[in-house]
């Protein structure tokens, strides 16, 4: 809580955010009536002790909206420095090979090249980095372990020069056999990815090519089997999904006079980057100053380092500012992906539809380096049973080291893979029992007070049955909607069929023949915040002063705004707590303490909690000042319950005591403090028992699809979602998160996969071949937002960003299964899986 010096730079780039004036925005006039895209339970007048406009619960507009629609917003790839040069990364063409020799002489001779760096040039003893385990070489040393691994760096006066020079680096490789799946990785004589492991998971894993293994044992599975009237089992497979954020990895490193470096970069967690970067540069952390530049999406893909250390190394070596921007091709090699998984599940149930037991085994492919694999394993294991009450459970989850691309954080983080499998199992069980699949889920749904397989009691609302009820109650889209659509534009001549509404679209592959509709449901559970004993905290600094007669709050955190709207929420919280209208959001940098990562659905909870906490400290200071100045004039100053509202100090009865301007005069209150959520604890390595998570988040989806069964083409007609968010701090932004997350789940269901050869090479690193949903692939996504407060969280809120990514995929699959009668144990579903023309080489 020490007052801070002014941040560097005379004119820090701040985002001014005024509360909206006038009435709430009118609904779009003249738009066609649609299903509910607005929450049906918008918050009523619960505005916490504040009459100040633009506070929590309002859909205030983004403070960076104008910059973004005018093209002025500075993304990391827009950075420029007068005398900067460009960095380029030479990457391995092999998935596994020994590096016999590297000859950089020809590259160095090319005009315009400033330097070429290899592993041998690294300046300190620390040559590896990593989020959880430091197993990733900054540049490959004697061996490359995956296709696309960085081998050498070039700095040149033009990106094209750098690219050409890199092509002149002669690397002699001796290709090694790859391990690419569980069998090859855990064979007796399997080549070890990381011989001589010394990490904290090494001693408890059954094979050195297993990064981490987490079992969970609860109750008596054998007794459960005895009670079961039906038992179903299945093998499932999830392909490798990519975050595919649109703003490529990029940043600018500027060497400074003190021998340090200033790094401007698009990342998810500045301080975690700093902790990994500084030791490799051989610098103390205070000489590596990081500032967040504009981030074009993240979704977990910026949690690990990409070009950060590389740009700093080149800048320190050349003494020039160095910019690195990946192109799309390189971006697919520049970040980790979602773990592909193979899952085996067995469930039992009684005739009356009660789950008796569950066993499962989840094998995640972590690829060549650990990244966040251990935490992904912990999530997959602890959430493997889904949002259901099952007393007798046995779970095993593990992540492999292979020569495939490294996998780590992506929205949903281990819970996505499990949800795909357990939801398929629920439908199988319901079918076996002759029960309605929604009702079957509701009978077994967890609720507040339920105990998870980890032994942790759910101590906040868990409205699993209710969100299923709500999503089912939403109106269904009309049948044969291609006929009811207006025959304009893309309509086929002479018919009333709008092919744009059919599978295949303008390819005009059907006019309704062979098109079958299916409807599917799914629900999921995701943890919020960092788990398993991690000290999860955030830091905020808040200033309050009077400028031009008006009180202004300045909020400074290191939270990475990656598009989610955290800056909007910070301003709303400051307005609510301090009763001011004008809030300035300072750029995120490492001049303030860590905010933790923009991941795990945690920033509104944890950094929002930190801003709230520091605002409360600022308010205390305002009241101290007020009491000292005016306490003798009005007895109400002695009251405990004084609030800040509308720029004034008011009593809880609404009486204004003084304006903030009068209380503060020319004083600036400036406080910084940390805030952390309730502690969690590690899962036991044998039984998996432990209070591992701090909060859970629940979403349910109903998917309506139409399948051209002759061609195997799928059109998702509607993807309805109901989700409990505890408290919608910004209802519009919450809906945006739910719709965006649902769409990424749809992508995994029907199109998104990084295809990796059996020799571990990536086959489709481009947007031509790695498909993400376009606006034609994405249906209407009506959203029903429920707000049941979690008393342990700030304002009762619940992290919202990830849960919709879980249940979307299995809901779409359930709908396709209903339409086709096929098993479909693997995502993404491709046309050949639906037409029976699959060669079977890569399908599960």
């Amino acid at each position, binding site marked *: 809580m020490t007052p801070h010096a002014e941040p560097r730079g005379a004119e820090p780039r701040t985002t001014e955010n005024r509360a909206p004036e006038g009435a709430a925005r*009118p609904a779009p006039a003249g738009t066609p009536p649609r299903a509910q895209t607005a929450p049906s339970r918008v918050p009523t007048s619960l505005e916490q002790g504040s009459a100040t406009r633009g506070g929590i619960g309002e859909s205030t507009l983004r403070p960076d*909206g104008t910059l973004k*629609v005018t093209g002025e917003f500075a993304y990391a790839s827009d*950075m420029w420095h007068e005398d900067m040069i460009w960095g380029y990364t030479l990457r391995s063409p092999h998935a596994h090979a020994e590096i016999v020799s590297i000859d950089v002489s020809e590259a160095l001779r090319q005009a315009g090249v400033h330097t070429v760096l290899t592993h041998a040039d690294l300046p300190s003893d620390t040559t590896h980095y990593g989020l959880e385990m430091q197993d990733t070489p900054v540049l490959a040393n004697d061996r490359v372990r995956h296709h696309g691994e960085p081998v050498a760096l070039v700095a040149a006066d033009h990106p094209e020069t750098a690219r050409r020079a890199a092509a002149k680096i002669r690397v002699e490789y001796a290709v090694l056999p790859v391990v690419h799946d569980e069998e090859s990785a855990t064979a007796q004589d399997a080549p070890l990815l990381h011989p001589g492991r010394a990490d904290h998971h090494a001693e408890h894993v059954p094979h050195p090519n297993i990064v981490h293994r987490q079992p969970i044992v609860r109750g008596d599975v054998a007794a459960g089997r005895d009670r079961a009237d039906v038992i179903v089992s299945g093998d499932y497979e999830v392909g490798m999904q990519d975050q595919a954020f*649109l703003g490529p990895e990029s940043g600018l490193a500027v060497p400074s006079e003190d021998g340090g470096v200033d790094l401007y970069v698009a990342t998810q967690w500045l301080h975690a980057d700093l902790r990994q970067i500084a030791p490799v540069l051989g610098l103390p952390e205070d000489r590596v100053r990081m*500032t967040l530049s504009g981030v074009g999406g993240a979704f977990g893909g910026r949690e690990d380092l990409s070009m950060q250390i590389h740009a700093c190394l080149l800048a320190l070596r050349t003494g020039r500012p160095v910019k690195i921007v990946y192109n*799309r*091709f390189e971006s697919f090699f520049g970040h980790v992906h979602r773990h592909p998984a193979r899952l085996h599940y067995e469930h039992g149930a009684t005739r009356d539809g009660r789950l008796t037991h569950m066993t499962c085994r989840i094998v995640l492919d972590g690829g060549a380096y650990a990244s966040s694999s251990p935490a992904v394993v912990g999530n997959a294991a602890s959430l493997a049973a889904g949002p259901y009450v099952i007393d007798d459970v046995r779970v095993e989850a593990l992540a492999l080291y292979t020569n495939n691309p490294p996998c780590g954080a992506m929205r949903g983080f281990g819970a996505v893979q499990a949800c795909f499998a357990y939801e398929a199992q629920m439908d199988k069980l319901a079918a076996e029992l002759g029960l309605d699949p929604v009702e079957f889920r509701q009978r077994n749904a967890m609720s507040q007070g339920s105990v998870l397989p980890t032994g942790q009691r759910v101590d906040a609302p868990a409205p699993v049955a209710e969100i299923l009820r709500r999503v089912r109650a939403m109106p269904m889209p009309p049948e044969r909607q291609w006929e009811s659509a207006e025959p304009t534009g893309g309509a086929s001549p002479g018919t009333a069929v709008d092919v744009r509404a059919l599978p295949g679209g303008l390819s005009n592959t059907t006019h309704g023949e062979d098109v079958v509709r299916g409807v599917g449901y799914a629900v999921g559970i995701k943890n919020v915040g960092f788990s398993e004993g991690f000290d999860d905290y955030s830091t905020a600094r808040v200033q309050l002063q009077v400028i031009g007669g008006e009180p202004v709050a300045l909020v400074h955190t290191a939270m990475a705004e990656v598009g989610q709207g955290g800056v909007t929420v910070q301003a709303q919280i400051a307005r609510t707590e301090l009763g001011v209208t004008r809030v300035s959001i300072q750029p995120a940098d490492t001049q303030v303490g860590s905010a933790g990562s923009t991941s795990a659905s945690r920033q509104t909870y944890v950094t929002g909690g930190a801003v709230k906490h520091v605002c409360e400290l600022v308010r205390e200071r305002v009241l101290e000042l007020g009491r000292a100045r005016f306490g003798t004039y009005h007895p109400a100053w002695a009251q405990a319950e004084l609030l800040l509202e509308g720029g004034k100090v008011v009593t809880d009865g609404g009486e204004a005591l003084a304006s903030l301007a009068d209380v503060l005069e020319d004083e600036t209150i400036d406080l910084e403090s940390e805030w952390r959520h309730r502690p969690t604890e590690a899962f036991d390595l044998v039984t998996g028992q432990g209070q591992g998570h701090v909060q859970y988040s629940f979403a349910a989806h109903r998917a309506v699809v139409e399948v051209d069964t002759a061609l195997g083409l799928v059109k998702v007609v509607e993807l309805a979602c109901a989700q409990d968010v505890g408290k919608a701090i910004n209802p519009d932004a919450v809906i*945006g998160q739910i719709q965006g997350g649902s*769409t990424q789940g749809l992508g995994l269901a029907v199109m998104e996969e990084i295809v990796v050869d059996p020799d571990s090479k990536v086959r489709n690193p481009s947007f031509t071949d790695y498909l993400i949903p376009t606006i034609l692939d994405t249906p209407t996504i009506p959203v029903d937002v429920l707000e049941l407060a979690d008393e342990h969280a700030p304002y009762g809120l619940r992290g919202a960003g990830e849960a919709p990514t879980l249940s979307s995929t299995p809901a779409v699959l359930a709908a396709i299964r209903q339409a086709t009668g096929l098993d479909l144990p693997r995502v993404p579903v491709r046309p050949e899986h639906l037409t029976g023309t699959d060669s079977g080489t890569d399908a599960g």
Partner: protein
Amino acid sequence: MDGEPVCACLVAAGQVEGREVVTVEGLADYANQRAAGTAAADRGAAPGAAWESASAEAGPAGTSLDAARRWQARPAPGEQPDGAELAPVQQAFIDAGAVQCGFCTPGLLVAADELIERTPQPSDADIREALSGNLCRCTGYEKILDAVRLAAARSEDPSATGEVRK
């Protein structure tokens, strides 16, 4: 395409990976230069020329670091001092919550504006078709549809919402 001049966008899209190509910032620009008889020199011999030539009139490409650090919410040149002079489609994208990370926004604005100019009252199918060449990874497109509907409604009848600033 080895040795051939290609648009730099192909490099950015990863379509010429491993090829020895010469980039030209925009083939139209290249065509102009060739027509003027000035082009076709190997641009690799003059590093920097290719990327900078297209934007020569607009000053150095990109944004200077100092300018980037000074960036704040303010009207662009030519706008009213109160910053109200956004085009209807720009304002609609902000109001509808169609902007998250915003990386996709400029392209979508251009496509949406062109659509509304051509089809003042587009149906949802029209909007989807017109925007189908633009990717967005954040929003799930629903609020982008809202924004285009809103912009179209405001363009058609500015008095209806009282919100159009023109």
